């Protein structure tokens, strides 16, 4: 050891003598760079602000809002917006604003968790398929199968099958929540899996993976250290898009009568229940509709921003 050290100094002298090193620019961390880039994307920043406001509104808002979303007040049913009830009341006199705020919690939670689940499955399958040649054909077949499987009847049946057992185990709210999240997750991972697989195949060919192999890095470590961090950027973009898709899917499930039960306010459910009142009380439809759209749009913009920020072509080396 000691003499390598000596030699090192010697060599350093020589190498520096002729080559030297230029000053390397100021230190910039990888994610710092991404953030710098992201901040320049106006749409993405606006999206981030809007999503933050919506999330705060949903999770903190109800604490300050005076009405309970489940309080029935039949004499005051079907009111338009008033100072008392900012968005009016529904058919049995519940405050719509309170319901929209609380509904946001569930919709957002569903959106984010389901996207996370979908991404988790997709990334897992994608990495396994891309990395292990033996699993590839099998997993890709599975992906194709899921893509070709008509999901609607599947959804129906899964919901019918497990709704009550889950309800019993986790209580009525958490049970159905888990179910909806599971269903959206299980039907939305295929795209991510394909993207990730493609990415892994490309990364696997890159020399730094070969380098790791030549060092004798174990496969587990190659995946965790080299492959996974590098597929993170498409995964992040997929995740951002996935949130929007999950929120819409939840509302779609409500529409076909499969989502949350009708006594359970989510944006999709509120929107669906209010559609017949489109003429009488248009705002009742507009509010949840607008919030769904706003969230999805914002999240999409964030996804756009992330994509740009993570695109190496747009960043100087």
């Amino acid at each position, binding site marked *: 050891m000691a003499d*390598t*050290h000596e*030699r*090192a*100094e*010697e*060599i*350093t002298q*020589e*190498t*520096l003598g*002729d*080559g*030297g*090193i*230029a000053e*390397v*620019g100021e*230190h*910039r*961390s*990888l994610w710092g*760079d991404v953030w710098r880039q992201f901040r320049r994307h106006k749409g993405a920043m606006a999206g981030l602000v809007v999503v933050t406001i919506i999330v705060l509104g949903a999770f903190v808002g109800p604490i300050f809002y005076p009405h309970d979303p489940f309080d029935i007040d039949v004499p005051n049913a079907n009111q338009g917006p008033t100072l008392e009830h900012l968005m009016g009341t529904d058919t049995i006199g519940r405050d719509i604003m309170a319901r929209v705020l609380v509904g946001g919690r569930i919709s957002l939670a569903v959106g984010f968790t389901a996207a996370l689940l979908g991404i988790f499955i997709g990334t897992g399958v994608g990495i396994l398929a891309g990395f292990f040649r033996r699993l590839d054909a099998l997993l890709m077949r599975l992906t194709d199968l899921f893509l070709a499987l008509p999901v609607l009847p599947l959804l129906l049946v899964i919901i019918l099958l497990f709704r009550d057992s889950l309800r019993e185990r986790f209580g009525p709210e958490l049970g159905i929540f888990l179910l909806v999240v599971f269903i959206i997750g299980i039907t939305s991972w295929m795209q991510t899996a394909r993207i990730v697989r493609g990415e892994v195949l490309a990364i696997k060919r*890159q*020399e*730094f993976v*070969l*380098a*790791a*192999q*030549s*060092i*004798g*890095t*174990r496969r587990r*470590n190659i995946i965790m*250290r*080299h492959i996974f*961090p*590098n597929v*993170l950027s498409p995964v992040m973009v997929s995740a951002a898009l996935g949130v929007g898709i999950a929120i819409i899917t939840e509302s779609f499930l409500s529409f076909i009568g499969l989502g949350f039960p009708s006594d359970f306010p989510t944006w999709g459910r509120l929107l669906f229940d209010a559609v017949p009142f489109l003429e009488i009380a248009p705002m009742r439809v507009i509010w949840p509709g607008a919030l769904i759209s706003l969230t999805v749009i914002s999240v999409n913009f964030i996804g756009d921003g992330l994509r740009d920020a993570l695109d*190496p072509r747009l*960043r100087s*080396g």
Partner: protein
Amino acid sequence: MVSERMEDQPAASTGAEVLVGVRDLKKHFPITGGLLKRQVGAVKAVDGVSFDIYRGHTLGLVGESGSGKSTIGRVILQLDHATEGSVVFDNVDLTQTTGEKLRKIRPRMQMVFQDPHASLNPRMTVSSIVGEPLKEHRAAKRAEKLDRIDELLSLVGLEPSHANRYPHEFSGGQRQRIGIARAIALNPEFIICDEPIAALDVSIQSQIVNLLENLQHHLGLTYLFISHDLSMVRHIADRVAVLYLGKVMELADVDSIYTDPKHPYTQALLSAVPVPDPEVESSRKRIILEGDIPSPADPPPGCPFNTRCPIAQQRCVDEVPEWRELSGGRWVACHFAE
């Protein structure tokens, strides 16, 4: 028969110790097709290659793109499995070694890659890149490891203060230095340099070559230096092997091959290299080869070079030329060379 003859080759020529012996090495990538996706052919990327690399020396490996240079490198390091043949490293046949045993040998042989952008994980800091081999082989304790990383960085001419930065903050030449630091981290005996300077600017190339030479000198390294830059190979290598379509055409010490190439392909290759001197250029006779290098999936019969060879005859199509030794430790695969 070929390998038999090769056995006594090193002793005959230089007397130096053989560190790596490659015998009749083949690497065929299957091509699948048809209704049932059966194998219908093979890309013969490396098709029967034999050579020795002497301890402390540099073997240059030149050839055109697609001739199989990188594949040879990967197969020697067992990053790809050989289809046939053996790679003997310090008396161990690597093609027969697997699992943990192979992992134990890996630190002794390393690789420096062509593309300084692709060979460093963009999501890892310099210290984790350089430290990865140490970590994987538990070669050093934590504190020692940090010292060792500093030491390695200064060995390759970088400052220890750069350890916490990411590869994208460095220029191509500096990245290549990081790659070299990683390769020497475990004190290897043998390093394969796969076109380490091809992606660098002319003004930086010489820096890296100097570094490699210095390291070799001080650490007693053995190199397989892969390149298509013939002038740089001439500078750095002791012996040179010329590869064409997965086969070695000619192997000799560097001086003889550059001054007196025996194989028509070597002759053509050398004559095609432009010389940065207008005077020489204007008086040079060029051998311009016709056509392109054939596809390794469908190599021509006989001598692989027969489709472009200016002196080819019917014999070259009918017969695979023997890999034979000429005088003075020169090896050639041509019917007509002498």
